[in-house]
């Protein structure tokens, strides 16, 4: 069994055990019966034609699991949903990635998938907002847009011959700065309608990537591209990135308030606690954890301690039981 990696005192262990047992009793009975390991045969009604999906194989007429996980049935399709595997991309997913390499006319990103993903130069909006063909000069200036180790938010475009392609054709995608990137296992993130969240009361942005990369950062106003297309059309030149010599005025402009930075750290720690405990990560749960820590006047670094983890587990058990009663 995967143990939760925490140093717990005896009483904390007992409380955590109780909270987890409560969660276990709340989980639907159907799901726990459907857990299956490798080479377990899946009970299936052979009279209805059955479609064998991911994680299944045919062994002498029996349907056998090739993965460890939970069996899901959708009409005639039977498949095994695995738990701790790498991200499985679907077209339209919002993902966050880190640039590994700047190649010819494209960037290679690491998105926690079995291969690296590509972001083509032509699949992104130009910094000046104009829609035009990418010239050789644009190719030379690629490094000014994104460099190695930059964090980028993009959308999955599809599978091409050479791998997975992403696109960043809107102002809300692109480089993310002033914030923290937290990696969790992808199965803790559910696909929902909204992945970009703005927590107004703290002034921070929260982007929950489907690949398990979660970004918590300072709030950035998203400008609508269509409105301003008359922006200065200066001649494109070969720009040399000069990261080291940032002028004093720019530094002052880029300064983030201490309060905002504290809120960013608090939200990031909330996500870390949820990932340690293995709970699903959604906006409501993150807000709940942040409120819990603020109501207790907890220091930010105490949030990663064992006491707070146990409290979060107990609160989650309460939340799920109250949800169940409502239904």
């Amino acid at each position, binding site marked *: *069994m*995967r*143990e939760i*990696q925490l140093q717990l005192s005896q009483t904390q262990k007992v409380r955590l055990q109780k909270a*987890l047992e409560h*969660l*276990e009793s*709340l*989980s*639907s009975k159907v*799901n*726990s019966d459907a*857990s*299956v*390991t*490798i*080479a*377990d045969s899946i009970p299936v009604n052979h009279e209805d034609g059955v479609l064998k999906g991911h*994680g299944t*194989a045919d*062994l002498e007429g029996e349907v*056998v699991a*090739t*993965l*460890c*996980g*939970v069996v899901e049935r959708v009409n005639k399709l039977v498949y095994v949903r*695995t*738990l*701790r*595997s*790498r991200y499985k991309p679907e077209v339209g997913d919002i993902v966050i990635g880190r640039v590994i390499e700047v190649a010819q006319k494209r960037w290679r990103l*690491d998105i926690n998938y*079995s*291969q*690296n993903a590509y972001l083509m130069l032509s699949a992104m909006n130009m910094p000046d907002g104009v829609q035009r063909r990418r010239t050789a000069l644009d190719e030379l200036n690629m490094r000014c847009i994104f460099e190695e180790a930059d964090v980028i938010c993009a959308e999955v475009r599809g599978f091409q011959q050479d*791998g997975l392609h992403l696109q960043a054709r809107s102002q809300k995608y692109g480089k993310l700065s002033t914030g923290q990137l937290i990696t969790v296992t992808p*199965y*803790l993130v559910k696909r929902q309608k909204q992945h970009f969240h703005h927590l107004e009361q703290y002034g921070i942005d929260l982007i929950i990537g489907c690949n398990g990369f979660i970004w918590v950062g300072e709030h950035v106003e998203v400008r609508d591209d269509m409105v301003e297309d008359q922006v200065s059309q200066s001649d494109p030149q070969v720009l040399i990135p000069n990261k080291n010599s940032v002028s004093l005025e720019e530094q002052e402009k880029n300064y983030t308030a201490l309060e905002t930075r504290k809120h960013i750290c608090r939200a990031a720690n909330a996500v870390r606690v949820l990932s340690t*405990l*293995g*709970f*699903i990560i959604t906006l409501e749960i993150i807000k709940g954890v942040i409120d819990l820590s603020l109501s207790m006047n907890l220091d930010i670094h105490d949030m990663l301690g064992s006491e707070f983890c146990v409290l979060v587990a107990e609160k*989650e058990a309460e939340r*799920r039981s109250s949800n169940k009663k409502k239904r």
Partner: protein
Amino acid sequence: MRQIRAEIGAVSKADGSAIFEMGNTKVIAAVYGPREVQNRSQQMSDQTLVRCEYSMANFSTGDRMRKPKGGDRRSTEISLVIRQTVEACILTHLMPRSQIDIYVQVLQADGGTRSACINAATLAFADAGIPMRDLVTSCSVGYLHSTPLLDLNYVEHSAGGPDVTVGILPKLDKVTLLQMDSKLPIDILENVMQLSTEGCKAIANYIREILLENAKQLEYRRGV
């Protein structure tokens, strides 16, 4: 057979990991993958590349070992053996253009390290969510004083009798690994193979229980 114990999730950074103990032999396995191929020339367009590295920690045997400079021949051989055994059982064609690395390290050696490594590797693969045809389990058998002995430890192994390591796929009833040291009369081989198959099936049952428990726990913790 000695007492076995397994634990999943020892290495938090790895995609899958496990610790497997058979008696006093303790082995830790970590799986990274499927991920991007590091060496482009080795990339295969239709299947995944499996790399395995076996090593024994310096403190694993009675006297502290010193690693030979030229690369330990025994470690290279066992790495190759583990790689071939597990490659036969994972569905490599489902993950083309990627690479799976498995690192196995022996923390405490008391006979049967090869078998413990293969069992730990199976657990680690299952934890990482890599599709497999069946679990691979392995067990070692010896023959001393006209009795087949299951799961030899270091003392029994030093007695000089034959040491047969068998790796099987329990549900499919297929043998993926068969190695032997020393000499064994051929009429005894049948007996010895049967004993090892029973041992492997017992280990497979235990591994299955552990994996099922782990899957259930992860699922109910996650919630909906």
